């Protein structure tokens, strides 16, 4: 082929369009930029955009379409875990290459996927550490949308908190359906739970659309960040752009990137983004940075491998470093996850985050959690001689439990 094709597999309609459209635009911007730099291997890049419409089986179908019909060399895509799970068998069958840019629950590592978002140890654990050490939180509300990412994260956190000596009584877990919009009772419960005389915080894995009504209810019931701070893992600048943040000032989020991070690269990226979208008010967020890193690493790996062949690029990817937007350098590990810094930010009245805490160095993403019984012995390592995604360090074998 005379171009290198880049598949973009993000929902542009349906419930997930609200989050994913931005990532499609980000990839398009990256492709543009790369082409301005002269493309890759002397060829131009060509983006192939499809709309899987927030429909999970459609994700699989579109992946197949991208790989067999369009013959793309790489795919940037997916947001929800279920979409990724749907795509996974197809991408493995056809030996494609995908970059997944969203924080997720971990417990996975595929040869054909690079995970540039955070895994729980790059987001949830540091956030809890911060709450516990800096804000002296003793009582915990783990509130999440009822699906796998919150469930897993909360399981990890429960185990982690209990290991830190937190009493079971001081942990309240609450799950709500997708798009839950009536938060009155739950917020009232949180208030009551927090009224028992111990410093309380909410760790929120509430997803997407449910957040706006949740925060609105928090604001209206007068739960302020000083009383009961809420730290969220799915609320970034983009989500905040849909809320009046003045009553929410001081609530927290944990990410590997904030738009407010002071760095030259970030400044440039933001400018470029605003120019690309033609909207001065457009914000950037963590999954965009993840896409940015993923894309550039892929470009670097292709140049290193001097081909877009998946197996070659996959091997070339491991160990690649690329400056992230927060001033440091991100590194792709053997388990296809990144090493990245972790930031905690407080919501400001302009919808931005103020970084109030950051890890000292980089945190390497874990594919398998150390806090879950089923996976604490597992690691992923895609280099020889192990070369698998679920190597059991006890049984010294691939394939989960090992036989």
């Amino acid at each position, binding site marked *: 082929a005379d171009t290198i094709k880049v598949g973009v597999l993000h929902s*542009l*309609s*349906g*419930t997930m*369009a*609200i989050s994913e*459209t*931005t990532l499609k635009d980000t990839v398009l911007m990256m492709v543009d930029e790369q082409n301005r730099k002269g493309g890759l291997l002397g060829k131009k890049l060509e983006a192939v955009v499809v709309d899987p419409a927030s429909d999970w089986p459609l994700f699989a179908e579109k992946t197949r379409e991208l790989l067999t019909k369009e013959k793309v060399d790489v795919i940037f895509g997916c947001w929800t875990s279920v979409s990724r799970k749907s795509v996974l068998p197809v991408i493995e069958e056809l030996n494609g290459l995908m970059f997944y840019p969203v924080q997720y629950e971990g417990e996975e590592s595929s040869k054909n996927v690079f995970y540039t978002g955070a895994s729980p140890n790059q987001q949830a654990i540091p956030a809890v550490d911060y709450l516990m050490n*800096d*804000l002296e939180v003793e009582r915990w509300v783990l509130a999440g949308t*009822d699906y796998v990412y919150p469930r897993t994260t909360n399981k990890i956190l429960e185990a982690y908190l209990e290991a830190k000596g937190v009493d079971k009584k001081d942990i309240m877990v609450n*799950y*709500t*359906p997708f*798009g*839950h*919009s*009536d938060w*009155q*009772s739950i917020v*009232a*419960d949180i*208030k009551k739970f*927090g*009224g*028992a*005389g*111990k*410093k*309380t915080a909410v760790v929120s894995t509430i997803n997407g*659309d449910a957040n*706006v*009504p949740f925060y*609105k*209810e928090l*604001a*209206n*019931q*007068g739960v*302020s*960040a*000083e*009383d*009961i*701070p809420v730290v969220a893992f799915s609320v970034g600048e*983009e*989500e905040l*752009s*849909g*809320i*009046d943040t003045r009553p929410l*000032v*001081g609530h927290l989020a944990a990410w590997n990137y904030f738009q407010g991070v002071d760095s030259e690269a970030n400044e440039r990226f933001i400018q470029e983004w605003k120019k690309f979208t033609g*909207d001065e008010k457009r914000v950037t967020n963590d999954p965009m940075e993840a896409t940015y890193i993923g894309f550039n690493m892929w470009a670097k790996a292709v140049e290193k491998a001097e081909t877009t062949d998946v197996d070659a690029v996959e091997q070339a990817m491991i160990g690649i470093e690329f400056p992230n937007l927060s001033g440091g350098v991100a590194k792709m590990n053997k388990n296809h996850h990144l090493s990245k810094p972790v930031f905690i930010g*407080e919501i*400001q*009245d302009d*919808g931005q985050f*103020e970084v*109030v805490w950051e890890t000292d160095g980089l945190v390497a993403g874990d594919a398998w959690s150390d806090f879950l019984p089923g996976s604490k012995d597992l690691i992923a390592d895609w280099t020889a001689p192990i070369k698998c995604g679920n190597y059991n360090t006890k049984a010294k074998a691939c394939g989960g439990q090992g036989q």
Partner: protein
Amino acid sequence: MKHLLLTGCLLLALVTTLPAASAGSVVSEQAAPSATPASEEPGGNRQVLLARLTRASLRESAEVLDQLERSGGRAMRGLFAAMLAGDLYYHRETGRLMAVQKNPAGERIGSDIFTGEGLGVQSRGSIKKVRVNNRLRSHLRDAIARIDLMHGTEAQKEGAVLAILDDLSPQNMRLLQVTADAGQSDRVSELIELARAMVELRDSSVTDARLSAIAVMSGRLEAPVRNQLQRLLDDERESDRKIRIAAQQSLEEIEGRIAFYDFMEQLFFGLSLGSVLLLAAIGLAITFGVMGVINMAHGEMIMLGAYTTYVVQQLMPGAIEYSLVVAVPAAFLVSGSVGVLIERGVIRHLQGRPLETLLATFGISLILQQAVRTIFSPLNMPVVTPGWMSGVFAINPVFSVTFNRLYILLFALAVFALLLVTLKKTSLGLNVRAVSQNRDMAKAMGVRTEMVDAMTFGLGSGIAGVAGVALSQLTNVGPNLGQSYIIDSFMVVVFGGVGNLLGTLVGGFSLGVTNKFLEPATGAVLANIIVLVCLILFIQKRPKGLFPQRGRAAE
């Protein structure tokens, strides 16, 4: 809760403040000269402190603030309040501190932090915000509370004492003593009395005194009271049987009262959810219930109303307080006109084929969703809650009602009443029903059926738009807004009985209340499932809904 953090810092502050001056008197002394301008205070020390404030790291700031409070007392309230609100800036070159606020035109207007003197428009690059984080904010709040305990309004004093209930340290008690000596209103005195009783119960060893303390505490709904009684009962060292029994009784009484208010709270939550369901369904009760159009685009009419609210707020950034008043008629017009267009353009061609309206309106709903994505972006749009709709109406420490929910409840009832009157008292209502029952005959009686159809569909859509204004206060204003309400809306209309407005009202509220009473026991998801199953079973009992249409013709 808030009290915990607040008192934690209060304690910290007191440790540093009080020993410095012999407690009590100093506090009130400091208050006296505060009318004099800041610059006259002893020592350029304060200027130094203020300068430090602009440069300090977040950690150092706390220390600077303490010193400022000690030196400036009441005079510092403005500074603290501005900083708490995030309005405190300093000039990059002169380092001068100022409160900065945006005017409606979006310009930054500075004013002196102490005198309030106007400093004119500040360019964006010339000023920088004084950084503040959660920790500082609670610090500031406590400082303000301390100032308020002496000099604040009644409500502020009350709040300050309430905060102290969480931490009854000797220092705090001394502070309360000073406050009490200054003579206070009944409510504040009562709270101070309560604080004393709590200390008595905790520290005293005289059974009678402790019993009377318990008597004072009995029936109080403040959380610290409950927590203390609970701790006392949990504490094995507490061996005085009389005290235990009294405490037990007292706690039970408190819990009894709380149970009652919990019930009230749930009822309110239920009614509030009901009002949302009602609002969402009410337009559909017309387009579907009365006209018989299976209007899958109903949700998008709501969505248009919500977007209208957003646009209105963008157009009048200086008058957010009034934006909703403008948005209601605007949303009615926007959604209503789109409704009329849909009716004239599409529905009209489907007369006598009501089932096909499902297909067409489904198509329209897809188009409208995508249109909104194209025009406004797929992101949610921020809609601001005006001040008068924010906050809670606290009836007592355990039962409060949020204003926005309360207003929306009232609004839903008002819209309903208005609609009922429109349909009952104008010829439109009669004509719609006639047309829906027998179009040809209505024509033969001279009814302008096209007009009636357009007006009715417009009315139903307009009402949906109005509902969108209310919903914009509670939930996402985004392209998916409509989808999240369409199922519920149909459910409510059908449950109430198609074609019966009153049914929609009762249906909405009963679904809301049932849901909210189930939720504490089952969780949100299961509550929802149970409600649905009940609904299915209910319809077996009453196949035509709550208020079926009766008579021969309905059979």
